């Protein structure tokens, strides 16, 4: 499935306008850094950009999506377009070296070459430094596109050598409205919209049983946290660990929990229209009366800390148990 220019323009009008100018005027920099939250269309835009540069029958600045170059970029078969993804946890030095070896040679078909590095923040320090040398001495027609969700984890030395394009997050309500049009129940729609920034991904999520189950478990855990702390540990042990297996899944689960606490704050501030778990509002109203704002803020900090620890290879079960104990400390 290839996404066309017009579709992406709705998401990221500013970025696409810049790319259109770049292509039209032929002023392509040697390195770009696409920065923005998950689901803001960074990869789609980078592929589109690649197609614009390589397309044979380019129409103004838009790729035709039908010529041999466009089709091969879509299928990953273009010999002069390279996409690097993290190999496991990180992008290894060997991957960057392979890329460098590739780019020390002339292009296969033309002299134009392009590489896209996904999750560029996950480069190991070694890898980043090898890339740096490469960014410093660009070949004439080589274009690099680095994608990252965590702009601040990139080396400054790399950022300073790239032209940075920021991808704005979509307003969650816009995504939720779109989901409701697709007959997704409103309480799911809003939650999915908060979790991801991509309409298609949100739609996929809200149709997924796993997501519904995840929401249920999070609510159960939340309820238990404020009733009976032993029960909360049981839920972690019996349900959470089984359900949230992958790191990304745990991350999403923690996000869901975080939104609950965020809702409490909104209720206390009287901004009930911003509440995500709208169907739970009466229950949340009760709780909001029993917890101080300071406590809620502390709990949110605990969850955010847990999210950060997740990236440092902590055992997920210990992580969750520690979190549960922390969330209950005040009780």
């Amino acid at each position: 499935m290839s996404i066309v220019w017009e579709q992406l323009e709705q998401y990221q009008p500013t970025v696409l306008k810049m790319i259109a100018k770049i292509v039209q005027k032929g002023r392509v920099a040697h390195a770009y850094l696409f920065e923005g939250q998950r689901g803001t269309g960074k990869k789609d835009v980078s592929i589109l950009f690649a197609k614009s540069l390589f397309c044979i029958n380019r129409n103004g600045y838009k790729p035709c999506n039908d010529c041999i170059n466009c089709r091969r970029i879509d299928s990953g078969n273009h010999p002069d377009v390279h996409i690097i993804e993290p190999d496991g946890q990180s992008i290894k030095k060997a991957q960057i070296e392979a890329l460098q070896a590739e780019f020390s040679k002339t292009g296969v078909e033309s002299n134009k070459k392009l590489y896209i590095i996904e999750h560029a923040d996950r480069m190991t320090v070694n890898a980043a430094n090898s890339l740096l040398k490469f960014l410093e001495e660009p070949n004439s027609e080589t274009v690099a596109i680095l994608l990252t969700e965590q702009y601040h984890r990139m080396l400054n030395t790399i950022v300073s050598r790239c032209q940075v394009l920021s991808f704005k997050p979509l307003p969650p309500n816009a995504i939720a409205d779109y989901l409701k049009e697709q007959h997704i129940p409103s309480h799911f729609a809003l939650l999915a919209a908060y979790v991801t920034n991509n309409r298609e991904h949100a739609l996929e999520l809200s149709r997924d049983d796993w997501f519904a189950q995840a929401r249920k478990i999070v609510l159960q855990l939340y309820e238990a946290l404020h009733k009976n702390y032993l029960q909360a540990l049981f839920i972690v042990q019996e349900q959470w660990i089984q359900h949230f297996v992958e790191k990304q899944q745990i991350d999403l689960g923690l996000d869901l929990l975080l939104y609950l606490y965020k809702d409490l704050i909104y209720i206390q501030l009287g901004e009930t229209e911003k509440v995500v778990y709208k169907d739970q509002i009466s229950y949340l109203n009760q709780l909001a009366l029993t917890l101080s704002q300071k406590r809620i803020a502390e709990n949110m900090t605990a969850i955010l800390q847990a999210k950060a620890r997740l990236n440092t290879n902590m055992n997920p079960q210990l992580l969750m148990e520690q979190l549960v104990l922390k969330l209950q400390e005040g009780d």
Partner: protein
Amino acid sequence: MKFVIQRDYLVRSVQDVMKAISSRTTIPILTGIKIVATEQGVTLTGSDSDISIESFIPVEEEDKVIVEILEPGSIVLPARFFGEIVKKLPKETVEIEVQNQFLTIIRSGKAEFNLNGLDAEEYPRLPQIEEENVFKIPTDLLKTIIRQTVFAVSTSETRPILTGVNWKVENNELICIATDSHRLALRKAKIETESEVFYNVVIPGKSLNELSKILDDTTELVDIVITENQILFKTKHLLFFSRLLEGNYPETSRLIPEDSKTDVIVNAKEFFQAIDRASLLAREGRNNVVKLSTLQDGVIEISSNSPEIGKVIEEIQSESVTGEELKISFSAKYMMEALKALEGTEIKISFTGAMRPFLIRPINDESMLQLILPVRTY
């Protein structure tokens, strides 16, 4: 696409093109062999994007029908399976037919394979050959040139340009230079060409090694075409494409000393063996360094000393030693590789002092030379 082909020819071609296919490729289509059937014959292509090999099977050869084309067309088939399948088919002829959705049927006798293919349109385009700018070299000479230069390329990726061999074409002469910045190999050869063109390209050492493997030892001429980003070697039925290295090759002509202070002429074989013996102990040490000193009456002494192991001294009688006395140290490995690359029984080594690079050349042959940088010892 539909054609019937003699299995032997197909097997041979598939084996040839398989040499270019790597299992570790990031581009999915390159795991396949591209097959194109035209009225003239069948072309098979394999590639790992660095090198590409194309093999052509004509419709008939020496009045013998090899391929019967029923319907022209093209397809890409997974190399791993296709290679094994054609090798093991039962009968002498193979029928290959492409149906809808790139489903390919391979029939031989009563055996029938259905293999899922890929769209040939997705396959990388190889450069079009312009017949004007061709130059020709005999196959055996080309192999010798490769053997005499490619060993000296750098294996370190820090300066990628040095991992290739510099080929310069001017005045009907081909000059090949390889260096890893510690030693240099140079080889010149006359070429046959009709056009007065000038080229200066750098060919990856790996590609030349592969090329050398697929060439036979014949005196037939190889056509060589250099395009903007690829070089093509063309033999009777095989086309070998290689990408070039990007960047400018360092200017090396200044490195080669014009005059010399000490000239030594020795028998290459004896000298090689002496170095080999001296390096037996030196090899164990850190750097494999041997020392050469000139003595009276054309005697040269080769020695190496590794304090923790022991030492070796050997005297050999040279043909002649002219000029100043000299003591110099160098890497035995580089010297042995250089001697192996040179032809001829007598070689001349020209030194310009203990700290300057020295030249090794066969006597009476200006077409090849080896240059080695000495090692500083105290």
